């Protein structure tokens, strides 16, 4: 395939970033917004074209005779050569998952661009906003098409930075500033693990290339056999550390704390970055390295356990949040955890790695309906100027479009057929049951909780009791509604895509077949959740309060997110800041600097101490003179004779 179009896919957002970043101040808001959106639109078209080329052209670059989808490098330029083997290349890798991401990212991004034209209208720094969105799109696209792990790391950092910039977009708000800081630092910490993992892996395999690593992992990893570092097998260590990077980006426990706070950013940003694209980078990373992970089953176990715990935790917390964006954030965490679990249970012997496909499928559908939900939430917030459901209620009358689309989103995430979420979640559950019944039941429960908390806020927003509105809430303008409608449509139909034809492990086609038992159970559980939510929240009543009172500690703990933030505050402030930084700074001033000053002081003291040698009395001078001469003689004699 010609490299022009793929190159343009990366170059346009970058160029748009530079253009808007450098010259944005001179443009009007409208020009900047339209420019950015048009740019993204172009990218959208180009990446659809590329993805369709990949999936449907039948080009032998992309699909083998036997129908296996291939990994294909469109271009790959040397960027930085560390050693002859370890070279960072910047390239463009097309394979089933990256092609899929080429659909997801521009779609959501374009929707967000469009939506923001209305949502962000009149905000100070509008041009900057679009510049950052372009930067993010560039970085995210760069991440998914990375041909090697270091390219991925580079863009990994770049998406982190653009996320930082966008979360802190309202930079005069202290909460936004600290949220952005938190997001960056927590993910940075995770990236440290990623980096060390890369260091270890690349040292033993002498390559960064995904294709080299994944096409024949057994032989590439042969050199790691038996190698240990500080008592651990290097391969396990490397893979777990690399997964740590994914945990940070994808907000897995215990590195999830940044994501709820990241909701301080503009809502479209949350939709794009913190729901649909960037946060799934961790999943994408594990999927990308999946063949290597398969070599180390214990690391996949680790992925599974972390994912399962996170899923349950996030779902429980989401049930007790007041801020609707927080609910969506925890929901995101929980859903990403689903994907992780799915990858964790993927084994070739279980339905030919169904988990892998399911995870990607869920990633795809989740991107659509979660972006939908966030954009809907944005419309609500835009309408009532508050993030809390307490300020909402009965909005179905005022905001019909938002209501319908939001409902579709909720149904999708709850897993009600025929919406998209049903299909993908079903595949995941099948995969998990195939691996272990225990985890299957666990994840089913989480699915039920999902349905409950989504409909909880649904009812609280659109039904419940109507508060006094200062202004009559209304649907957003067309640019805001259009994306909602499009995404709702996609969320409705996306489940019918034969995903197994496009994205599977090793590219072989996989025919999805419904496991009606599992499907039935999950739908039943979802319905139970929905009806329970309806029972509690349809009309204003005191059942929710009574239920909360009945186990107050649990409610409070869940509302406070099980005190993770407090624990982190304790560790960072009390232990690291007060326990390490301050003592070190003190040590530096008092001990190190003090000893340098001490040298000076000692010299000074010595100078004062001997000043009486020079007493001014000539007889003492002579006495010392004599003593000096005699001592010189005596000591020398003592030593020599």
């Amino acid at each position, binding site marked *: 395939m010609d490299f022009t179009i793929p190159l343009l896919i990366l170059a346009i957002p970058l160029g748009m970033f530079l253009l808007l970043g450098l010259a944005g101040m001179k443009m009007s808001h409208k020009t900047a917004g339209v420019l950015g959106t048009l740019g993204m639109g172009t990218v959208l078209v180009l990446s659809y074209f590329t993805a369709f080329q990949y999936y449907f052209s039948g080009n032998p670059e992309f699909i083998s005779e036997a129908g296996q989808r291939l990994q294909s490098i469109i271009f790959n330029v040397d960027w930085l050569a560390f050693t002859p083997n370890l070279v960072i290349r910047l390239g463009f890798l097309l394979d089933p998952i990256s092609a899929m991401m080429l659909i997801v990212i521009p779609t959501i991004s374009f929707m967000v661009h469009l939506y923001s034209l209305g949502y962000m209208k009149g905000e100070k720094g509008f041009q900057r906003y679009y510049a950052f969105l372009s930067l993010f799109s560039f970085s995210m696209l760069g991440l998914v098409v990375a041909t090697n792990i270091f390219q991925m790391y580079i863009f990994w950092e770049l998406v982190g930075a653009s996320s930082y910039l966008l979360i802190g977009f309202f930079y005069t708000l202290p909460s936004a500033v600290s949220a952005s800081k938190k997001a960056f630092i927590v993910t940075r910490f995770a990236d440290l693990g990623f980096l060390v993992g890369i260091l270890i892996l690349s040292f033993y395999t002498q390559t960064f290339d995904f294709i080299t690593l994944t096409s024949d992992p057994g032989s590439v990893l042969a050199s790691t056999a038996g190698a240990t570092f500080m008592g651990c097998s290097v391969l396990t260590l490397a893979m777990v550390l690399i997964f740590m990077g994914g945990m940070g980006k994808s907000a897995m426990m215990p590195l999830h704390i940044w994501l709820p706070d990241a909701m301080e950013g503009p809502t479209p940003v949350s939709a794009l970055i913190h729901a649909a694209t960037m946060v799934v980078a961790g999943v994408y990373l594990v999927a990308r390295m999946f063949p290597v992970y398969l070599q180390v089953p214990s690391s996949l176990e680790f992925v599974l356990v972390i994912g399962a715990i996170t899923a349950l935790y996030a779902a429980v917390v989401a049930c007790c949040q007041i801020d609707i964006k927080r609910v969506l954030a925890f929901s995101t965490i929980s859903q990403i955890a689903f994907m992780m679990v799915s990858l964790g249970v993927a084994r070739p012997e279980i339905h030919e790695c169904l988990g892998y496909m399911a995870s990607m499928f869920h990633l795809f559908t989740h991107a659509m309906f979660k972006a939908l939900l966030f954009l809907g939430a944005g419309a609500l917030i835009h309408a009532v100027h508050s993030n809390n459901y307490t300020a909402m209620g009965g909005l179905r009358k005022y905001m019909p479009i938002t209501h319908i689309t939001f409902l579709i989103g909720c149904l999708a995430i709850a897993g009600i057929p025929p919406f998209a979420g049903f299909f993908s979640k079903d595949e995941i559950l099948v995969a998990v049951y195939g691996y272990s019944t225990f985890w299957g039941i666990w994840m089913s429960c989480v699915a039920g909780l999902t349905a409950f908390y989504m409909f909880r806020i649904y009812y609280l927003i659109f039904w419940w009791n109507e508060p006094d509105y200062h202004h009559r809430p209304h649907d957003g303008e067309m640019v805001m509604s259009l994306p909602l409608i499009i995404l709702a449509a996609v969320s409705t139909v996306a489940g019918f895509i034969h995903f197994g034809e496009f994205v599977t492990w090793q590219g072989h086609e996989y025919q999805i077949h419904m496991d009606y038992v599992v499907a039935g159970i999950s739908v039943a559980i979802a319905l139970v959740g929905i009806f329970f939510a309806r029972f509690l929240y349809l009309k204003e009543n005191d059942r929710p309060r009574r239920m909360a009172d009945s186990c107050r500690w649990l409610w409070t703990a869940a509302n406070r997110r099980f005190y993770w933030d407090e624990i982190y505050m304790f560790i960072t402030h009390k232990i690291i800041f007060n326990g390490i930084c301050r003592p070190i700074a003190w040590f530096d001033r008092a001990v190190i600097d003090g000893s340098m000053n001490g040298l000076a002081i000692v010299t000074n003291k010595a100078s004062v101490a001997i000043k009486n040698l*020079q007493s*001014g*009395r000539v*007889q003492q001078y002579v*006495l010392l003179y004599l003593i000096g001469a005699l001592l010189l003689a005596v000591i020398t004699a003592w030593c020599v004779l």
Partner: protein
Amino acid sequence: MDITLIYYLVPSLIMFCCGIYGFLTRKNMIAMLISLELMLNAIDINFVVFNRFLYPGSMEGMFFTLFAIAIAAAETAIAIAIIINIFRADKNINVEDASQMKN
């Protein structure tokens, strides 16, 4: 009894040490000068005695003494001039008082 070299040197050394003692303890500057003369004399005696006992064939020690006497005279002259000068300035030749510059 044989009067050997050491017999001559011991009085000379005692004289030298008396000079040192005087130089270090006397307060009157002229007394200090007098002590210096004692020391110089002790050195003269040393030279002469060494010359006479050990190297009777040459006259190096004797000549050194000869010149040393002249040097001593010159030293004394300059020193006394300066002491008298300070006496004129300060009406005092106590060496303890000439200690304004110190440390």
